[in-house]
């Protein structure tokens, strides 16, 4: 699918939000929800950066690092993939302080969600690297490149193309996962919605706006990733 239909969907979502925001049943909720959406976006962006860094580190460590580091990477992936993000959030926020380590809610949110998504991402990285033909390694060796140079200059740039679509999925999972942070006192979009819902009982307008808000953000991610993919494919001299 091209970018155009997605851009149209994004435009329609924005138009719907704009139109509803002008409506008197909806207008009062807008300032609070926009503030909440800003928190959601901050957690998503910071979490995504951490997720990519953790995924590259763990994914490459599983493939190329010496045994102890490899095991560490496996432990990380299994620990964060095998337990729920909600439990991880609670554990970091409510249990860790019992051991004398207190981390603020925003940092906990970014750590838990970023590392959780990073664990899935590590497998994406590993799979994409393994999908690069062995011939490419040998061509690098025959040119006397070092292992590190082959990974960094030959294998990874090719693997990135295959990584982009699954990363698009993971970023959207991350965005939706941020709604969990309302349970550790952060005033994200979902938290604001629930708060206003309890005081005003205007469930219809509030959650319609929230629905469109999440859709707007996830479409933005999808379009961004699609553009990146197109660029990466062009970088291989193929037609996107």
């Amino acid at each position: 699918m091209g970018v155009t239909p997605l851009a149209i969907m994004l435009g329609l979502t924005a138009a719907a939000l704009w139109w509803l925001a002008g409506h008197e049943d909806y207008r009062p909720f807008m300032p609070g929800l926009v503030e909440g959406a800003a928190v959601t976006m901050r957690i998503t962006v910071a979490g995504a950066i951490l997720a990519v860094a953790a995924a590259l580190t763990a994914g490459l460590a599983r493939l190329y690092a010496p045994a102890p580091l490899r095991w560490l990477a496996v432990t990380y992936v299994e620990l964060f993939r095998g337990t729920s993000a909600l439990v991880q959030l609670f554990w970091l926020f409510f249990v860790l302080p019992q051991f004398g380590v207190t981390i603020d809610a925003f940092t906990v949110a970014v750590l838990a969600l970023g590392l959780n998504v990073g664990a899935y991402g590590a497998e994406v990285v590993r799979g994409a690297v393994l999908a690069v033909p062995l011939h490419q390694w040998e061509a690098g060796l025959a040119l006397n490149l070092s292992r590190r140079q082959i990974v960094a200059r030959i294998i990874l740039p090719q693997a990135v193309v295959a990584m982009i679509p699954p990363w698009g999925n993971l970023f959207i999972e991350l965005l939706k996962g941020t709604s969990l942070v309302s349970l550790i006192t952060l005033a994200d979009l979902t938290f604001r919605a629930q708060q206003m819902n309890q005081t005003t009982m205007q469930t219809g307008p509030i959650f319609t706006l929230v629905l469109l808000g999440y859709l707007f953000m996830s479409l933005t991610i999808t379009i961004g990733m699609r553009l990146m993919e197109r660029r990466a494919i062009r970088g291989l001299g193929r037609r996107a």
Partner: protein
Amino acid sequence: MMQDPMVRFQNVTKRHGSHIVVDGLNLDVARNEKVAIIGASGSGKTSLLRMLMALDPVDSGEIFIEGEPLTHMERQGKRLPPDMAHIRRMRGKVGMVFQSFNLFPHLTAMGNCIEAPMRVLGLTRAAAIERATELLEMVGLASRKDYYPSQLSGGQQQRVAIARALAMRPKVMLFDEVTSALDPETVGEVLTVIRRLGEEHDLTMMVVTHQMGFAREFADRVCFLHQGRICEEAPARDFFHNPQNERTRAFLRAVLEAG
């Protein structure tokens, strides 16, 4: 050092599991000599080149390049298995062109030719580009330097691969069935480049090929491999006009029949 052969295989054996691919093989290749290696598939031709490129280790025996061991190193009179630094130093003397080109798809023709010279030889970008431009000109692809591999024909890709290997200034060039994956109409352009390379440059060349016509006119010497051993070797003319071994004759007959 002068009397050392450029390449020496000494009693080299290579196994894949219980299958013996190369069986106690001995072969000397002189400086600037052009050797064609022929034989049925599975006779060990490609293994020979891969061991010399240090892509596969030998199971036993020794390989020397310019009299220096590739397969072990000597430290204070002791024989040690080669470490990475030793292998990389020896690899620098050898270049290889593969059957399936193996160009880097994310780099242009020029990018393919300057990556290793910059990273391994430490050339500046400008110096690497200057050298690569000469080489791409030599293989007739200067006008395609900004094309990606996917935008080039098989024959063009293989010529870029030759330029890329030469950019590392190897002393020995290995060609592993470099025309087998090509459309028939592009085989000629690649062979022409290899032929010119042999005529105009001081290079030791080992060519694994199924092109008997090319082997005859290009090579100084032809080696026929059978079951991991050199069954017959002779100057090219003698080899094709008067093969001594019954197996060689059968092989040449079969190849000739296939056209």
